[in-house]
């Protein structure tokens, strides 16, 4: 099970890094904010945070305190950057002028920063003074991830419903419509997985890293993330043909 979990994290890190770099390259050409935000989201999560988690696990207790803590801080700060960049992406794409979306992004950024600081402090005390990790330390930014993934999912699926109506009038590209579905559904699965982890952590009073159920959730999240990023941002030609063919078939049947 552990091997499967590590495999899914490695796959997620590889796909996320490649797709994220492609989006950042697009941002350098287009000078547009959405590709910059989502590129930063993927690169900071997949190329920094996930490798830091893997390195921590691989080094174990034998590594020096400084190295372990340094990797932890790198991982958690990368997660924070990823979270805020994803919130900014959602805000800019689905309603840049909307006041409530602006407030939501600001709220996520500020409260997640506070949680990150508390998490880093609690971890330092655990490593240096063997202090017990409080529940807020166990949770870290998990509630923020539930909120951000859930928000992104609802916005994407709502937009997909509108795209379906446009498609019926020939006013929408089925490939782009499908992109909203894949992205929204993927974020929906991620929301559920993180929510389950949050509930388990609160119920148990601690994050059970070695629990098979928790490992299964992490594995599932990694695999879903990799698939969603691939199909949304670098879809293979065969997949695009399948989507177009399905839409054409649906139009004929309808």
């Amino acid at each position: 099970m552990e091997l499967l979990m590590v495999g899914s994290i490695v796959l997620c890190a590889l796909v996320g890094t490649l797709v994220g770099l492609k989006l950042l390259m697009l941002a350098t050409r287009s000078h547009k904010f959405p590709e910059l935000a989502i590129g930063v989201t993927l690169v900071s999560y997949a190329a920094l945070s996930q490798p830091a988690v893997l390195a921590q696990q691989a080094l174990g207790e034998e590594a020096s305190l400084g190295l372990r803590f340094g990797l932890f801080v790198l991982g958690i700060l990368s997660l924070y950057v990823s979270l805020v960049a994803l919130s900014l992406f959602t805000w800019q794409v689905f309603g840049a002028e909307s006041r409530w979306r602006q407030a939501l992004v600001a709220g996520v950024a500020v409260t997640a920063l506070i949680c990150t600081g508390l998490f880093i402090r609690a971890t330092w005390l655990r490593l240096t003074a063997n202090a017990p990790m409080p529940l807020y330390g166990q949770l870290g930014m998990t509630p923020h991830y539930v909120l951000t993934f859930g928000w992104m999912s609802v916005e994407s699926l709502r937009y997909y419903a509108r795209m379906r109506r446009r498609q019926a009038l020939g006013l929408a590209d089925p490939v782009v419509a499908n992109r909203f579905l894949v992205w929204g559904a993927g974020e929906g699965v991620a929301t559920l997985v993180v929510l389950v982890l949050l509930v388990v952590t609160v119920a148990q009073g601690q994050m059970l890293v070695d629990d098979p159920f928790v490992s299964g959730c992490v594995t599932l999240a990694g695999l879903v993330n990799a698939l969603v990023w691939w199909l949304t941002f670098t879809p293979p030609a065969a997949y695009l043909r399948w989507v177009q063919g399905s839409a054409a078939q649906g139009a004929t049947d309808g």
Partner: protein
Amino acid sequence: MADLTVFERACESLEELTQLSRLEARGTMRIALKEAGLDPASVRAAELSVVAGRVLPDELAARGVADAVSICERLRGRLSEIQDSAGGETPEAVFARLGGA
């Protein structure tokens, strides 16, 4: 006049072409756009023209407007003369670009 959106100009035309009040014309147009999955703030003239051809006639007929099809054809003629003003970027445009479409 130059600052009016495509939606607002279409509503004014609909008001002129029918006996509908300003409020009724705007409401009917909003319902037709919602039915088509479009947003009044970002709809383009070409998209509104399709809505006027395929969705609006039924909405007008449902409100007792006589000769709805002919009115919609005249509305489409007016829409063809409208130049789209450069609006903000839509989610559709962003996702099209991000996936390389």
